[in-house]
């Protein structure tokens, strides 16, 4: 699995689709999954020419180790931004993330809203915008079943992403892939993965204590696709950063270090925070999506300090310089 992966861009208003490579260096800086999605959101909304904050954006992302020789499940993370309604995110069930990678894409970026029932079809490097009208001639089925029946393939993975609150008719993403993910060191990667699966107890050392440490761990898990399936309130990582480094080296050939991974997590938290500040999203409108949004007000000063943000919750210029993202800074007024 090399780090040269692709994003499928779909403009639902214009009904256009295109594939593009993930920007060079993004995967080292933002890993995958949630991290690249956050950078993508910032890039396409905040850095786009003109008033881009008027469009809704949905991003389906697979983790950097999704579908690889790693204790990662096949889920995808759906991040949604709707103007005036804030940010939301969820891990979706099934194996959509893994199938999307086998179909040739790590992310699906959806801009705007569909005006008629549609589904996006991703298959072996191809992106198609298809009418979903025919799917509902027989209303006995849910969207996923209808797509599988229409295409006569039980292995299709699909997710409905309809923005019902925004009045969107029906929108789903469906994928099926037969492409391969290159594994840099196949047999050692399998052996190491097996060792981790057999390890029942694993101590995870966090770089900072408290909610900030838990947020950083959660970000890493969301970026790599290793979030525990039944995790609701724990610290988010069941695999230590040392083991993640080893998994990344064996699967992708990328030699990194635990400190670099934690710095990447800080970078992602900072970008998410900057996006919310730029888009005017209050903490309450992005719980669990923007780092720190779910922290109770009384604990925020300590959280901001642990994240190296200012007293008002803005990532400091010094931090942004250290993380190499000082071009994204937010000017406090």
């Amino acid at each position: 699995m090399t780090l040269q992966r692709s994003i499928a861009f779909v403009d639902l208003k214009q009904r256009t689709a295109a594939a593009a490579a993930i920007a060079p260096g993004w995967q080292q800086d933002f890993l995958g999954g949630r991290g690249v999605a956050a950078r993508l959101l910032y890039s396409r909304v905040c850095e786009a020419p003109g008033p881009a904050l008027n469009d809704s954006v949905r991003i389906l992302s697979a983790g950097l180790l999704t579908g690889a020789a790693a204790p990662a499940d096949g889920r995808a993370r759906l991040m949604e931004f709707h103007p005036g309604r804030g940010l939301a995110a969820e891990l979706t069930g099934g194996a959509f993330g893994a199938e999307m990678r086998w179909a040739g894409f790590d992310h699906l970026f959806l801009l705007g809203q569909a005006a008629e029932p549609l589904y996006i079809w991703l298959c072996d490097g191809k992106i198609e915008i298809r009418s979903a009208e025919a799917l509902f001639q027989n209303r006995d089925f849910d969207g996923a079943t209808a797509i599988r029946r229409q295409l006569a393939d039980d292995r299709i993975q699909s997710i409905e992403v309809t923005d019902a609150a925004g009045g969107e008719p029906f929108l789903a993403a469906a994928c099926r892939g037969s492409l391969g993910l290159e594994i840099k060191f196949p047999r050692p990667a399998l052996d190491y993965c097996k060792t981790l699966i057999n390890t029942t107890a694993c101590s995870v050392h966090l770089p900072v204590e408290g909610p900030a440490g838990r947020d950083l761990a959660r970000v890493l898990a969301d970026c790599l696709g290793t979030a525990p399936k039944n995790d609701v309130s724990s610290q988010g990582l069941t695999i230590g950063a040392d083991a993640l480094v080893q998994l990344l080296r064996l699967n992708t050939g990328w030699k990194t270090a635990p400190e670099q991974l934690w710095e990447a997590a800080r970078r992602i938290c900072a970008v998410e925070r900057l996006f919310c500040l730029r888009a005017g999203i209050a903490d309450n409108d992005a719980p669990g999506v923007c780092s720190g949004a779910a922290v109770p007000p009384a604990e925020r000063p300590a959280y901001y300090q642990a994240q190296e943000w200012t007293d008002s919750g803005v990532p400091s210029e010094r931090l942004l310089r250290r993380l190499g993202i000082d071009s994204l800074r937010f000017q406090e007024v």
Partner: protein
Amino acid sequence: MNPDAILVADPDQCNGCRLCEIACSIQHTGLSRPALSCIQVHNTEEGFFLPVFCQQCADAPCAAVCPKEAISRDAATGAVTIDGDRCVACRMCVYACPYGAMGFDAERRRVFKCDLCGGDPRCVAFCEAGALCFDDAVEIKIRRMNQAAQRLMRGAVPAA
């Protein structure tokens, strides 16, 4: 190595995670590529997962139909294996297999099937749900018999 060992799946335990497909394809091709995995998890609309793989049939239809006698049994592992040098990729074996367990790699123009990883199937090692088992046929029979007895004792099986 036990030539009498068999690979079996318990669909009730399978959760459809497909780690077996990932492990198998990496083991045999170096890629995570379930399309070329010798084990495939078939799932139905009802949410039923069935791992499908070669049953290493005693009177294997794939071997019987092969015009080049490229398919034979490995005496050491008990697996029905393909001799790549003899195979002409006519795909008669793909058609003949009653389980749909033979695969065809269109890029490399070759058929493929489960070879039990030389006697230590990788898919079993990665099945966290415990749906796959590779053991002596007699041992498996005894285990299944015990499971059936326990179900009867719990009253889970209605009396005939």
